[in-house]
């Protein structure tokens, strides 16, 4: 396996970790808005995170 190959693997693992932890949520939101609603106003990172937190915690999200 070449060094480039290994690096590629590491990058994919890193992307997976960011995705599963929600670290990349804002980037994904921006990409989605650019694709689907390019004319709509874009929330800032701060606004987006505050709004996400409000949404996530208004229902049952944890279990016994």
């Amino acid at each position, binding site marked *: 396996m070449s060094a480039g190959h290994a690096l590629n693997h590491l990058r*994919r693992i890193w*992307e*997976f*970790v*960011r*995705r*599963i*932890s*929600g*670290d990349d*949520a*804002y980037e*994904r*939101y921006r*990409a*989605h*808005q650019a694709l*689907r609603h390019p004319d709509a106003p874009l929330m800032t*990172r*701060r606004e*987006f*995170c*505050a709004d*996400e*937190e*409000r*949404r*996530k*915690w*208004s*229902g*049952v*999200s*944890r*279990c*016994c």
Partner: protein
Amino acid sequence: MGGSMLKKVAGGLLAIVGAFAIAGIALHRHEPINALWIITAAVCVYLLGYRIYAAWLAARVLAVDPTRATPAERLNNGRDFVPTHRAIVFGHHFAAIAGPGPLVGPTLAAQFGYLPGTLWILVGAVFGGCVQDMTILLLSTRRDGRSLGQMAHDEFGPVGGLAALIGTLLIMIILCAVLSLVIVNVMKHSPWATSTVLATIPAAILVGLYLRLWRPGRVLEATLLGVILIMVALVGGGWLDHQPQLRVLFDYEGLTLAGFVIVYGFLAAILPVWLLLAPRDYLSTFLKLGTVILLAIAIVITHPTIKMPAITPFVDGTGPLFGGKVFPFVFITIACGAISGFHALIASGTTPKLISSEADVRLVGYGSMALESFVAIMALIAATLLDPGVFFAINSGAGIVGATPEAAVHTISGWGFPVTVEQMRNLASAMGEQTLFARTGGAPSLAVGMASIFGSTFGKGLLALWYHFAIMFEAVFLLATLDAGTRVGRFMVQDLLGRAWEPLGRTSWYPSVLFSSALIVGGWGYFLYVGVIDPNGGVNILWPLFGISNQMLAAIALSIATGILVKSGKARYAWVTLVPLAWLAVVTTTAAWQKITSPDVHIGLFAAADDLAAKLAAGTLPAARAAVAPQLIFNQRLDAWLAMLFTAILWFVILDMARICLRSLRGERVPASSETPYRESRLNAAVQGAP
């Protein structure tokens, strides 16, 4: 062709290995067995269940259709509705369903021996819990991610929906009560545990500030910061424990700690989520996944011998942890880990909005529950690798075995499980604790078990640190569920109150927020208070009640699933949910019946209340017990009424389901299906998110 042949051979091998492992467990009845037998049997059972039963369920019963567009695709908003790769949905779903339940339940059920718990965890998960989670997940995915209560409302009518809401609210209260009681028992007279758990609060707040003010949304950086802070708190707690003038500041009675927990719960419910609740949740999820993986590795490396007998004499109902025979109480005690109604709330809410293809429900629904069940198996191993005498000494309340160490070891050794005061003293000092007698609730004995596994894998010298790591892990876990449960309970109270007077339903109107939070915290706080003053530990009463309520919720979920299957013309397959439903109805009703009517004071709640009342009237109680007797008497009667209410709700929903099914089978009018019409998916495998 070659691939399918290979699969068949692999499946056959799996079946043979699994059969050998189960036979090994069953035939080694009179000599100690190795934990690897249990691990092997469990893994084979899950894989077989997943490959054969779940595949059949998906293809035939649920008619999973990968060409059908999911709500994540149709309603994609880049936020909660997002088509997501199934590995990531699996991770999110597992993190959401895995709570402290599968850790505590199997530990308590270990009083019957390792065999009843192991069998129920495996059979219950494969034919009950996994089926429930997968079915509800698919049904909700086909209904735009609607919640369980909404589905009950849409498919059965408004009354069924209200019953589901009230049932869920009551479970929240009992759940929070029992979890807070476990936390108090963990921290009682343990300055190391108390200071570490207290330090996790400012740690969480710092992480919250970091995520809100300094680096919004940088979850990974914040988690790293939080984990470092928590580890510092853990080691710092150990240092503090050796400072005589400092350790007294964190040495508290149960009642004082209960006060702390109640105030904490109230604050967590009314403070903004970003400050405490959300950051604690990040930390708890990280710790949870990390510890579960670590524990699995450590068990395989150390492959400890199980010292608990396969079956103990306590199957006759005389057990010291809680009263009641193995049937029905093992099925009530181990709720999460075999089947948990609570999962249906997660499977109908957040998760279906992420599913990118219906084909993923097998991995996400069935697979996550199988993994959760495996966590329960590991907890059972950690409990049963202890010397049985030690296990019973840690988990039996002073009211059962005697208040002094000498009395306790005498009673327990008399049962045929030898243990000495010195052995317990050495163990406590190795774990860095004053005493391990009567540390009820399951968490301390689980921590001792985990510490001995971790200790023999990663270094024996650090036993005390490992013990407190396990304690801290459990506490963070318990507190995270307590926070979330209190908050969700608050929303439910507001939903109910809002029907009576609209302003009370506004979730951002502060008078209503304070009032409904006080109601919910007062509810569980009351049970916590009574549990703390109860000389038998309180968990012996509360945990069975929690089990009954959780199984009731599972029965509601299975009723909804059965009703929908029948309504959609799948009556001949309805047994897949009807059989677990019937079993749950039988065990829950039997357990509730015995809790209400049994003349045995260790089981019957009314009998225990009457017995205590008679002793109080006759003046035969010691002064300390007489002082708390009136509260205990009232509480036992209240618990009996609650058990009756749970059973009533259970049968109400079952009969409502039967009514709908009968009408549907006879061709009479029933509420129309709320399934979203078919639309072809335009996603293909290549664009389904990373990676």
